[in-house]
């Protein structure tokens, strides 16, 4: 039995955890939720004894009557991996790229029990089988780069449970994965807790994930646990205002824009668009294989229409997006924007100005050296900079709810949500007829995401712009689109009104996406 008692942590004198207490009973899943920076991960690192340099911890982390905070690194290392295991958010980088997966799992057993290499390999094989990587397809000699993200996360789990620890800490274990893989990994973790009776501390910002998994939930805010209780009770009757705010944001549905698609010629027509990539050759003179990233895709959008394009990662939606934006050449078929062909690299400014984009990453979307004023004005390159451009920038910022004094500042002075607002202002500034939103809210916390979705709804109503909403997450698309296109392996496999696709998905891909959509307790779609 492991527990945290009155744990406080300060880094360089700045408090990051304040009087945190938490019990992790065996065979139970404890959820720890909160927004980024609330102290969830720091709690996990404190339990593991892996706090960053310069951190000072007080209180107690208790394992069978021993205070882990008092142990030196040598003794703590003996417990890590044997009594407490941990998996992290980013499976792509969590494994050593130069070591086989078998060796990485076996290393735990060699480290803690001095097992011989082949004995450890035998156990590693069993553990990899247990996490759903059977020996026939996943021999021990594979290297991490030969596996997908979900498979790598399974290896990371196998590593963490190799020595059957009493406690497993999972820090945002599914955040970096697409929805269907997310659901499979959560199933695996639930199964492990049931079979092996370990305690699981599940850390996530996603209330839907804990709601459907955890026995008890603790909510963190500003380094403190503000509320803790049985999951069903907490979701039914949240006591703390912050819990209520988080739940409200997660359940939030933006008021659907009452702006029907406008009649007339379509703003975007994709006709049998195709693009393939050459695959790396397997042998020096083997014929080059081709991957059809976008395969014979056709659809069209009316002015003012809001359309979602969804699919699992690797389905081709990113390539299609780049083709529509004129960043990737169309190899077969054609794409017409407002009746004129999109040709990568050779588009007149006036045509190009009819489509703008908002990207996913609120950090990489802006040149850190430019002022917001210059950033938002950049699309004027297409139309020529009007005399009153500064006024127009100020007006665009006001439209997305930012003060005019934002213009003189640099992007690092803004939060993630504010940056996405600035990105929207940049897309709006030249009044395009189509805005592509490429996973535009995926990186945001729930509350901020709700606000940005509201803003988008409002703008659509007031401007009559068509939105193309690219996402891997159906719950995002549900609230804001009229129509959904489902993409799978380069093709569009389903095209229909959003409600109909969500309620009665026809294609296998759409059914997978709907099934994987995490649901809050007491919620229907």
């Amino acid at each position: 039995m492991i527990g945290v008692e009155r744990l406080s942590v300060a880094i360089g004198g700045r408090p990051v955890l304040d009087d945190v207490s938490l019990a992790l009973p065996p065979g139970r899943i404890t959820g720890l939720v909160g927004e980024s920076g609330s102290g969830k991960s720091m709690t996990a690192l404190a339990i593991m004894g892996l706090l960053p340099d310069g951190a000072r911890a007080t209180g107690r982390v208790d394992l069978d009557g021993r205070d882990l905070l008092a142990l030196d690194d040598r003794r703590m290392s003996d417990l890590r991996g044997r009594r407490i295991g941990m998996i992290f958010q980013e499976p792509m980088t969590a494994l050593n790229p130069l070591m086989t997966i078998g060796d990485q799992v076996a290393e735990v057993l060699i480290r803690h029990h001095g097992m011989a290499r082949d004995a450890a390999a035998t156990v590693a094989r069993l553990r990899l089988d247990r996490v759903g990587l059977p020996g026939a397809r996943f021999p021990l000699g594979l290297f991490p780069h030969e596996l997908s993200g979900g498979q790598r996360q399974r290896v990371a789990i196998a590593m963490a449970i190799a020595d059957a620890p009493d406690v497993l800490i999972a820090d945002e274990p599914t955040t970096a994965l697409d929805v269907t893989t997310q659901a499979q990994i959560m199933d695996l973790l639930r199964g492990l807790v049931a079979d092996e009776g370990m305690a699981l501390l599940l850390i996530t910002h996603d209330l839907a994930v804990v709601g459907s998994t955890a026995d008890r939930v603790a909510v963190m805010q500003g380094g403190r646990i503000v509320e803790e209780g049985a999951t069903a009770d907490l979701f039914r009757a949240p006591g703390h205002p912050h819990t209520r705010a988080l739940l409200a944001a997660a359940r939030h549905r933006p008021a659907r824009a009452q702006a029907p698609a406008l009649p007339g010629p379509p703003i975007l027509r994709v006709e049998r668009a195709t693009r393939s990539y050459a695959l790396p050759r397997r042998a020096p003179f083997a014929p080059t294989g081709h991957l059809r990233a976008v395969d014979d895709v056709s659809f069209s959008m009316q002015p003012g229409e809001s359309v979602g394009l969804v699919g699992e990662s690797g389905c081709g939606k990113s390539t299609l997006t780049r083709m529509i934006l004129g960043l990737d050449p169309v190899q077969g078929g054609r794409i017409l924007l407002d009746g004129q062909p999109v040709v990568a690299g050779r588009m007149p400014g006036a045509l190009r100005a009819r489509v703008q984009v908002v990207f996913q990453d609120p950090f990489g979307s802006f040149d850190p050296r430019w002022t917001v004023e210059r950033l938002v004005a950049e699309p004027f390159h297409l139309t020529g900079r009007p005399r009153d451009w500064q006024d127009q920038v100020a007006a665009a910022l006001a439209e997305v709810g930012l003060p005019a004094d934002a213009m003189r500042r640099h992007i690092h002075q803004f939060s993630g949500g504010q940056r996405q607002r600035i990105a929207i202002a940049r897309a709006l500034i030249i009044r395009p007829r189509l805005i592509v939103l490429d996973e535009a809210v995926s990186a945001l916390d729930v509350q901020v995401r709700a606000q940005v979705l509201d803003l988008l709804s409002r703008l659509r109503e007031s401007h009559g712009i068509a939105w193309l909403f690219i996402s891997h997450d159906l719950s995002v698309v549900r609230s804001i689109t009229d129509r959904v296109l489902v993409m799978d392996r380069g093709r569009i496999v389903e095209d229909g009104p959003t409600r109909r696709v969500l309620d009665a998905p026809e294609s296998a891909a759409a059914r997978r996406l709907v099934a994987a959509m995490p649901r809050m307790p007491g919620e229907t779609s």
Partner: protein
Amino acid sequence: MTLAVSLLVASAVIFAVVDLVPGDPASFMLGTGARPDTLAALRAEMGLNLPWPVRYARWLGGVLTGDLGTSLAYRTPVAGMIVERLQVSLPLALAALALAAAVAFPAGLYAASRGGRAGDAAVMAGTQVGVAIPNFWFAMLLVLVFAVKLRWLPAGGFPGWDQPLAAIRSLALPAVALALPQAAILARVLRSALIETLGQDYVRSARAKGLTRAQALRRHALRNAMIPVLTILGMQFSFLLAGAIIIENVFYLPGLGRLIFQAITQRDLVVVQSSVLVMVAAVILVTFVVDLAYALVDPRLRGAR
């Protein structure tokens, strides 16, 4: 394949540059008082009147059959001269590289494991100075102390490998002089590569498995840090082979660098051409070997080419 193309292009560049060198080798050999008809005869004999494509083709053809030409100044085959000089240059470069690695690896590992603390700062300060020292000046100081004052080792010259002990003794100071700045560079690269990999997620995973800081450094960070280190090692080997010219001058060693250097001043262009080609070929070959070594270290690069 690319190896052959690189060598071909390199040979053309070398030929073109050497062809640009002013001064007529024939008149240089005969001195200023030579009679015009003697000069013309020598020029014809040396093939200097032929058009350049023919001269290039002849040279290249010779190189491909192992004939690097005949020295104009000494009238001996260039291949033999180069082999003789490599008996000094190659052991010197290898000894310096081994010495540099022997100092740099422990220093880099130690500094990285003490990242940011006093031990790290001390090693880094030492390498800063090491990088800043011109090796030929360091060589002069070594001579001053170990040859002139203490008389432990010879100040210069090379007795030949038939006296192995004396030969090793005469290469000791040059090897140390060459190794010092290289050791400092290597230690710095190793340290920063290690510190970079220590911040990676997989090192955190390794710590979560129960590896101590030192175990994670040795078992996970070190191998991942080897890639930049290999690059530097490859570059250093070629630098040591060619860059020893100056050190060879300090110690009067008959190495490959000094051969090129003397041949230039004597306008012995055949020797220049062929020995530069040998040196460049060695560099290209080392780069190729380093590329192969990457694949040994990194499974992601296997079968990629």
